[in-house]
């Protein structure tokens, strides 16, 4: 499942996004407004981060009236739960950098 690892690593590589996700893990379901109050970035920025987290399967949203509540989906972290999974993600990420370097190198 290299693609799954890769997506998780990319998604959680951003410190602000990781902090939002950790907050949801610690404190349970929250609204965008509640998350914004403690994130140190604007509401649109928080919404954007939540969108990326949702796409990676790390959060789920639940609309209620005019508010949307977000919660962490811890099972999405399963590929990272063991050491081999983490190291796998590390190398997949490095191979991305390698591919990028190769396209820039002269013959």
């Amino acid at each position, binding site marked *: 499942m290299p693609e799954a690892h890769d997506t998780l690593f990319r998604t959680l590589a951003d410190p602000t996004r990781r902090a939002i996700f950790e907050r949801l893990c610690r404190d349970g379901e929250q609204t965008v407004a509640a998350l914004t109050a403690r994130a140190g970035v604007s509401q649109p920025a928080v919404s954007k981060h939540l969108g990326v987290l949702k796409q990676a399967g790390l959060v789920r949203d639940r609309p209620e009236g005019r508010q949307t509540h977000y919660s962490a989906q811890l099972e999405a972290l399963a590929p990272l739960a063991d050491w*081999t999974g983490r*190291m796998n993600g590390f190398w997949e990420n490095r191979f991305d950098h390698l591919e990028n370097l190769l396209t820039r190198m002269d013959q």
Partner: protein
Amino acid sequence: MTSPETRSVIVEREFAFPPEKLWRALTQPHLMEEWLMKTDFEPVVGRKFNLRGEWGGVLDGEVLTVEPNRTLAYTWDFNHDDPAYNLTSVVTFTLTPTAQGTHLRMEQAGFRPDQPQAFGGASQGWRQFLDNLDQLLARGAE
């Protein structure tokens, strides 16, 4: 190096470039720095070198195998005062030419399944996050 209690990680990918070009990226320090880590590596068997992670950690390496354009192997060790953080492993790159370019296989072997702390290559924040991960997962399972 490998014993029944150790595991390995294998990552494979096909690159649309010839083995010679990959070999340069795998063995020249200024190129290695761009995709892997800052290093004083030299493709000479027995040569000792360091890999310096952006998080401040330093990995110790020793070159084990150099078969130009085909195989490169070196040790990848992390020594820490706390044995729980120690990591002893061997990284082997195998290059195989294909019709489209090169198939690259990386195997990192020799680490124990009980050393989750010795993650080389992550930023401090990322490492802290991983340290918390088991706790988060345990809570999620409640």
